[in-house]
């Protein structure tokens, strides 16, 4: 097989859908049906859509004793109010394909009983001809409750029984800790964070007889299809989910949440297509969040900084009806070569809705505790924080003895130290001042596993020399449209303009969830495979075609550029795809690409990062201001450098938010979130964001997948918050173990 020239891959290209987005033509779920049909995606106009507004519980625990809909029903335009009183039939079949859902527990069943499990739980839905009427009517629905005292505070609440996987031990940690020359110990508290994507969740559902079509905000159209089929007791073939654009998600559009069911249910009951858009406040109760953690960590080490023992006691909030657990245990098992480790991870059931994955799920929460503790250990032993980490670098994965496919964390640390000017840092805390500002530098390492799953893609080359590539993946912001087009363009030997990539339709070839940084590895490899196959098929057609100028040439000697097949090194000898297909009376060529990850786990595959932060802290007012940040990443090959920067810098912004601003605040008296809006839940604004920079180590990981990528979107979030917290310590001498770090902790 010949090597195709690389023109698009590796080039800092702008998003292929950028113009659609900035001119408002990209059709998000909530834009329909007002948006017009466009050539891209071919979304049909949906006639006769009516509007649904959800009524939420205003207590966190108890029973619904009555729902008075008289005033709502009397409003002009109101088509109906649905609640558990109507006993709407929903099957809620098991859905074994919903592997993203918690293993233990049962998803929330909407309108099936009178039980209230959390504040903001949907208790009714109002459907009306106009959105305004539906909103007004929803406000007129009177719900009465028999309320009980809820438990919503993680601190002190009893734990669930653990799963076997929630305890881990190697070596003899207690003994090693007791005999360690140096010990550090702390409890790190991460508050609950919400994703707060700009786009609200929205669903339009339409029934055509037995068939259900849903336009939804989702990172996984196949997951949504299967879940709707399970909930409504249908065959998956009768459900189609369409989601061409997602306006940010960060993980909260992976699961299929109750509102999607509510929209489909309302459409069935009212017998009209129904549109449902969650309000900003409802997004705080309806689509998951990053759970709060209490992470107790004890480290034992030699005076020389070799960590000998680590004991992790981890508690995370979950709902009363599902035990959500994420990969919070992994970093503690394999980030450093610690011989003696014990971990106990417990979930704590509260009267809240179920948490879910949020960028860097689990791994980034663990990294805050581990990397803060490592900083404490560095301070305690007087060893430079980078040197300390280098001294604990494992030669193989200490959790399973496997070799690393690639692990270049040391290189990340050294490269970052040079680029950031780490050598200028006086290790003594509170040693640098600029007027009223205390200046500090901090760093942290990061790790995230390289997830890969089976993926497929359809590739079609038309007689006009343009190609269409399809996969049922998603683009929540990383630029899937663009990066896949880049891969396909090079593999097919076409320009970016002559390749179209389509996603977000459950009728397209199967793709895994668009999350966990696996889209490039899986879907990208399938696209690469399908395009390679198609190009090879075209080459074969040419070399076997007596009328082709390429007849008889060794297929391996042919490359394709700009839609023209030619002999490598002899551009004059060749022909275009168009000529080839026309002469052979072919309307198109079509192939199916697949990627199946190697099943034999011979390697430990992970992406790594070293994150550096410089902060200024007002010595009297306690305000923390970012001055600059650098991330250095070992993520394998970079397909699209401009998009990679968007990912890395965006995650730094998210990490700054987590470290300094973001905090979902619950009033534990009644379980209400008091800042369920973007005025009171603070995310960084431009003024908070300093000079940010990302460096990617040049390389690839071909053990991971044929295109050599290790995943980027998650690792760039891991390590940001601890780097900032460590910089705050260096600036002030004050160790803050609770996020976010706000003024009162530093006064």
């Amino acid at each position: 097989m010949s090597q195709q020239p690389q023109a698009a891959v590796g080039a800092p290209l702008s998003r292929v859908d950028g113009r659609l987005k900035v001119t408002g033509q990209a059709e998000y779920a909530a834009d329909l049906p007002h948006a017009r049909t466009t050539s891209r995606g071919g979304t049909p106009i949906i006639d006769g859509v009516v509007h649904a507004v959800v009524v939420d519980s205003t207590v966190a625990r108890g029973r619904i004793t009555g729902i008075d809909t008289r005033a709502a029903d009397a409003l002009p335009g109101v088509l109906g109010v649905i609640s558990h009183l109507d006993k709407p039939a929903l099957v809620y079949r098991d859905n074994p394909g919903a592997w993203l859902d918690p293993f233990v527990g049962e998803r929330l069943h909407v309108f099936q009983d009178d039980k209230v499990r959390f504040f903001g739980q949907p208790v009714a839905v109002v459907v009306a001809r106009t959105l305004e009427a539906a909103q007004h009517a929803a406000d007129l629905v009177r719900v009465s409750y028999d309320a009980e005292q809820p438990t919503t505070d993680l601190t002190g609440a009893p734990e669930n029984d653990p799963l076997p996987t929630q305890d881990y031990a190697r070596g003899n940690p207690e003994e090693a800790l007791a005999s360690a020359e140096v010990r550090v110990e702390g409890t790190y508290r991460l508050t609950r964070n919400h994703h707060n994507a700009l786009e609200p969740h929205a669903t339009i559902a339409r029934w055509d007889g037995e068939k259900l079509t849903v336009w939804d905000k989702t990172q996984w159209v196949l997951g949504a299809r299967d879940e709707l089929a399970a909930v409504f007791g249908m065959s998956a073939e009768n459900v189609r989910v369409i989601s061409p654009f997602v306006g940010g998600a960060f993980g909260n559009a992976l699961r299929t949440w109750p509102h999607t069911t509510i929209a489909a249910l309302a459409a069935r009951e009212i017998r009209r297509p129904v549109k449902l858009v969650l309000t900003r406040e409802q997004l705080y109760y309806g689509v998951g969040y990053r759970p709060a953690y209490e992470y107790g960590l004890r480290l034992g080490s030699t005076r020389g900084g070799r960590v000998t023992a680590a004991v992790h006691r981890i508690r995370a909030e979950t709902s009363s009806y599902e035990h959500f657990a994420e990969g919070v245990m992994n970093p503690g098992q394999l980030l450093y070569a610690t011989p003696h480790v014990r971990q106990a991870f417990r979930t704590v059931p509260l009267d809240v809705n179920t948490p879910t994955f949020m960028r860097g799920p689990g791994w980034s929460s663990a990294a805050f505790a581990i990397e803060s503790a490592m900083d404490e250990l560095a301070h305690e032993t007087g060893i430079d924080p980078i040197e300390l980490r280098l001294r604990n670098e494992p030669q193989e994965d200490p959790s399973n003895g496997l070799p690393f496919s690639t692990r270049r964390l040391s290189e990340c640390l050294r490269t970052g130290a040079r680029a950031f000017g780490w050598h200028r840092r006086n290790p003594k805390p509170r040693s640098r001042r600029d007027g009223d500002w205390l200046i500090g530098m901090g760093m942290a390492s990061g790790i995230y596993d390289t997830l890969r799953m089976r993926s497929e893609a359809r590739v079609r080359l038309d007689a006009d020399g343009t190609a269409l590539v399809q996969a049922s993946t998603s683009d929540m912001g990383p630029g899937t449209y663009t990066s896949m087009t880049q891969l396909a363009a090079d593999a097919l030997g076409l320009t970016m303009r002559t390749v179209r990539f389509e996603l977000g339709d459950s009728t397209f070839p199967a793709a895994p969830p668009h999350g966990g940084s696996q889209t490039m590895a899986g879907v990208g490899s399938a696209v690469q495979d399908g395009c390679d196959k198609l190009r090879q098929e075209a080459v074969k057609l040419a070399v076997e075609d007596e009328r082709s100028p390429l007849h008889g040439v060794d297929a391996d000697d042919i490359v394709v550029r700009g839609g023209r097949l030619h002999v490598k090194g002899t551009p004059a000898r060749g022909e275009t795809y168009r000529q080839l297909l026309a002469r052979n009376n072919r309307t198109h060529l079509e192939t199916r690409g697949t990627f199946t990850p190697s099943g034999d786990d011979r390697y430990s595959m992970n992406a790594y990062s070293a994150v550096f932060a410089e902060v200024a802290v007002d010595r009297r007012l306690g305000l923390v201001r970012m001055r600059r940040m650098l991330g250095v990443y070992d993520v394998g090959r970079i397909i699209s450098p401009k998009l990679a920067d968007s990912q890395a810098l965006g995650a730094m912004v998210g990490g700054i938010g987590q470290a300094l601003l973001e905090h979902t605040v619950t009033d534990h008296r009644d379980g209400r979130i008091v800042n369920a809006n973007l005025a009171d839940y603070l995310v960084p604004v431009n003024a908070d964001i300093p000079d940010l920079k990302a460096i990617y180590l040049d390389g690839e990981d071909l053990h991971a997948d044929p295109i050599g990528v290790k995943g980027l979107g998650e690792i760039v979030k891991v390590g940001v918050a601890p780097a900032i917290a460590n910089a705050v310590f260096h600036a002030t001498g004050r160790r803050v173990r609770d996020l976010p770090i706000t003024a009162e902790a530093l006064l």
Partner: protein
Amino acid sequence: MHPFSYTRASDTREALDAGRDGGRYIAGGTTLVDLMRETVERPRTLVDISALPLRDIVVTRRGGLRVGALVRMAEAATHRGVRALYPVISQALELSASAQLRNMATIGGNIMQRTRCTYFRDVSADCNKREPGSGCAALHGVNRTHAILGTSDDCVATHPSDVAVAFTALEATVHLLGPDGKRTVPFADFLLKPGSTPNREQALRRGELITGVELPALPRPLKSGYLKVRDRQSYEFALTSAAVALHIRGGVIREAKVAAGGVGTVPWKLAAVERELIGRRPSEALWTKAAERAADGARPLRHNRFKVELLKRTVERQLRVAGGGK
């Protein structure tokens, strides 16, 4: 949102007639429309006063400034006279909200804006301001951002305006026009502490219209400025803030105008701080000593104890910035 009717007043007379009949005045709408969407506000009639001739900033005969009620925040902030005479006003405005909001919101609307207390803005929570007699959820609830001064057991909500803090410091006057004619009210009397009637927020009579805010002439030179302390560097309300204006002549502070924001149920005039300053020579020690009085009478709540110390330091910092020092 609940249904409402909307009329546009073409002149002051029309506005007053509609106001007398119970209409709610609306100009920039940056607060009212939000609150209507949340059903916190449910006016039956909106009277749009945008067309009224209240958009001028004029120098008064005494050498002060009068800012029309419909002057946009952005216009007032960048007005040459305001910038030259009262930097504290410009700064307070420019540190408020976002550029988009400042382009819409008016000075009259700004001082009428309602609290950011999240319980006030959540119709399912108890709030005496929104629903008299229902109770105050914030008093023993989540109250990090709430007031430590001027509170009552019925309400602990802060007044959110920045420019109102500057108006309070400078002792501005509010010009009103009502069915019974014109009157003026000292700014300190215009915004009401909650007491047992937190639903009453301004000393306005039925149908009365704000026509402008007058800033008094002050002895010159006058050094003034505004410091806003907040978690986020832009687009956020104050945890604490300080408006300071100092007239220093012959090395002695002759006039001191100081007020604080983010800490009071109304913008908080710091008379005790002013008294510490007047007649004394500027020094680091003086700023610290005077600022010690900033939180006199503070009644902190569970989550906002830090505001007592933060307020003192905020005032100290801004005294130093305005009055000089290292």
